[in-house]
């Protein structure tokens, strides 16, 4: 699998994603510079976390206009696999590739901590290898991660099995207390209707390296490898 990691000015998780794909998963990975138009024949595109263009406006609102994003959008519309993590998720919603939007956390603060997640479907590229009762301990780090979708959209997401992850407690219960940022229905990640574009606020790349004492993010990457290489 050849992975492209988009680098916007202000991206700061790009190297972490590259490290996981390259050093831990042993895949070919190339950075895709925001000013370029060449996707270098990648099989999978990842939009990393960070503060693209400073995120002084709404998060992701400027990055979607980057030259590379024109190509990413075309790639996704042709069925190519695109995944956004944290700021990458925000950019994909701004670009209209994913439904919903990300609001300020309800406590109006940046929150960085480990949270628990449960996959809500196995019918996706990023969750196919995750058991439905498996509780994953994955960090979040964001100020605007409060997922919102209006009622019709939310119904479509649920009806079409587009919710990838919900926040839960250590025992796997999806409760209000386990919701770190106010996301509607505890939603932590979604995919589009065609199931080729994915977004999530938690950072699986921060839970992939054994030396950090937490590899709960690995099943997610293994799902991707299994499907793309299949």
């Amino acid at each position, binding site marked *: 699998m050849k992975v492209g990691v988009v680098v916007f*000015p*202000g991206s*700061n*998780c790009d*190297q*972490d994603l590259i*490290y*996981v794909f390259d050093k831990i998963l042993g895949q070919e990975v190339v950075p895709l510079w925001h000013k370029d138009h060449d996707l270098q024949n990648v099989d999978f595109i990842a939009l990393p*976390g*960070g*503060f693209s*263009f*400073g*995120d*002084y406006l709404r998060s992701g609102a400027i990055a979607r206009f980057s030259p590379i994003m024109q190509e990413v959008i075309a790639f996704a519309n042709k069925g190519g696999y695109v995944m956004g993590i944290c700021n990458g998720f925000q950019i994909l919603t701004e670009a209209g590739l994913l439904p919903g939007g990300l609001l300020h956390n309800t*406590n109006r*603060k*940046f*929150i*960085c*901590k*480990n949270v628990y997640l449960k996959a809500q479907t196995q019918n996706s590229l990023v969750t196919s290898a995750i058991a439905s009762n498996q509780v994953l301990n994955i*960090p979040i*780090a964001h*100020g605007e991660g409060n997922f919102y979708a209006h009622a019709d959209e939310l119904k479509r997401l649920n009806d079409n099995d587009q919710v990838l992850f919900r926040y839960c407690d250590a025992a796997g219960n999806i409760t209000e207390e386990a919701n770190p940022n106010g996301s509607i229905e505890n939603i932590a990640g979604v995919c589009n209707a065609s199931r080729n574009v994915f977004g999530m606020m938690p*950072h699986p*790349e*921060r839970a*992939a*390296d054994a*030396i*950090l*004492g*937490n590899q709960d993010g690995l099943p997610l990457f293994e799902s991707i490898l299994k499907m793309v290489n299949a």
Partner: protein
Amino acid sequence: MRPNSNIRIKLENNNLTTLETAKDLGLRPEEFEKIKEILGRTPNFTELSIFSVMWSEHCSYKNSITWLKTLPKDGPRMLAKAGEENAGMVDLGDGIACVFKIESHNHPSALEPYQGAATGVGGINRDIFTMGARPIAQLNSLRFGDPNHPKTQWLIKGVVKGIGDYGNAFGIPTVGGEVFFDECYHVNPLVNAMSAGIVKVGETVSATSHGVGNPVYIVGSATGKDGINGAAFASKDITEDSVNDLPAVQVGDPFQEKLLLEASLEVIKTGAVVGMQDMGAAGIICSNSEMSAKGEHGMRIDLDKVPTRQQNMLPFEILLSESQERMLIVVEKGKEALVEAVFEKWDLNCAIIGEVTDTKRLQYFMNGELVADVPADDLVLGGGAPVYQREYKEPAYYQEFQKFNIHDVKEPEDLKAVAQHLTNHPNIASKRWVTNQYDSMVGTANMVTNKPSDAAVVSVKDTNKAIVLTVDCNSRYVNADPQKGCAIAVAEAARNITCAGGEPVAITNCLNFGNPYVPEVYWQFVGAIKGMGEACTKFETPVTGGNVSFYNQSSDEGPVFPTPTIGMLGVMDDINNMMTLDFKQEGDLIYLVGESVNDIASSQYLASYHKIAASPAPYFDLDKEYETHQVIKQLISNKLIQSAHDVADGGLYIALLEASMPNQLGFNINSDSEIRKDAFLFGEAQGRIVVSVKPEEQEAFVEFMATTETEFSLLGHVTGGSLLVDDESFGSVQDAKSTYDNVLHNILGE
């Protein structure tokens, strides 16, 4: 190139200054005389402004350098020693070096907590990457007044958000720090920020300037009117008039800083850079003079070529502006295109503003007219900047504090109430309200996220090494006894690094004190330096630099506790040597390594439960402490212990609780009949470490300990969650954790 006589006459007749102006700019009468002597004439306003900032305490260290020079600064690992570059550089082995430094942003944070703290983070990181190192970890040390006071809450919320917003967007994890509350910081909070970066040996850049005709670039943000005279502002007491200094506070832009980081590291790779220095305190003039003095050259600068945010900025404003996110770069002539391409790629300003000359003078032109002409060397520390010996005098309180006797303090009957009091105290309780607002994990190198440890352990990618970092200073101890208290701060830092499995290698310091012209304050400073020197010599941790922040005192409330914050760097050659602080399993044995002492002096317990401020520093024996650390190192490398946690604020009880909470375990211990039980549980005698040992390793552990001179005692064992002392229940770990975790939330809100 010297100015011709016509220009020179114009310079002299233009806006000549008086002693009054000099005083207004914070200069002393004798300093004004010295400036006239250096120039051979009366300075104009621009020149006087230059001297006023460069000779401010903040830039010149004029009231501290005599004593700072007594500190140990040599060591086998030192690649850049104190005063040589923007930050200290330490050899980690295998061609890797660590650049690290701590700096204060106290005065700006007192007035404008958000921007004050944010720009503190920005400034310290620029000190690291201006040397070519990529920052990989940040820490901070924060001190505030009573957290229940509305003004303090405004300060805490602003400072924490400022640090978070800047550091999070910049994308370097905040991996450690300390937060301490005491009334003495009510007017003057302390905001100390530390950063550490990694660079390959031989790929660093120096803050120097040479090569006649080489172009001088300013890159990064445009220059505005923010932060003018900030260094001078930081060099005086805070009074009600300080509100007029608000324009001296700078405004930060972490996005620009992130771009500047990437562009700066990329431009070094071109091989075109002669020297580079960031612009922080005292702006362009500081970088120009320090680089020129170091490289023994001069500069000719056209101020009208500096990109500005406002129109019609005056020469002194451009020179002194502390606008953030800027760098000065001297480039090898002929390689301009290589440099400009990098800044073009990152969409950053990049302008040639002058060139290197052989005059050793700094000559500033505005629209072709010479507006200032000063010798570089006379502006800087180690050159012509003044150096003062200050008077000092032992304050009356010191002897009073020494008279303290534990027998005069009645032992409380209900020690569970004391335990509850401490668990519920903001100085002891969890700081997660603060730390969860910082991105502590970006960079995927922070090894303590899931493995709590006494110090931050940050892996160095593509090696098997980690750097180990901590910031420590119990300022109550330093106030009680500056010399001993500061030695304790160094020892505690070394203890934390050692307990995490690291080897202490060097320190950086942030010396926060009151007004140096007050002899009793200066006595605290001198004592602290002596204690730091002794302890750093013992631990073989040279002082690589840092900063001095005097004038942390207000007109009505006096000085803050003397607070010499120690930022220590340790190295771990093999990340598998990492040690954690948490109890692992029910049934493991709990030992205390180090001596139990009948001492409650300067403890949190004595200060807040008994409300007794007059007591000396706690028990401390530097030689024994050092020996204990060597023992702990061997226990870790021989894999004889499951956990190691030092006994610090709150004493043994709190240390045991902290070791219990991560895995929801508890402890069952017995006290020592020879020591008062309150001292045993809550005293803060130094040099003690709680370790846990698997039952099957007990024999090997005891055998090993018997070969050492260090005292040790069996305290008890790890339980499934109950907290027991002498068979008396102190509650459950769940209840204690629920209290401990929510103290700051209850005070500060969600």
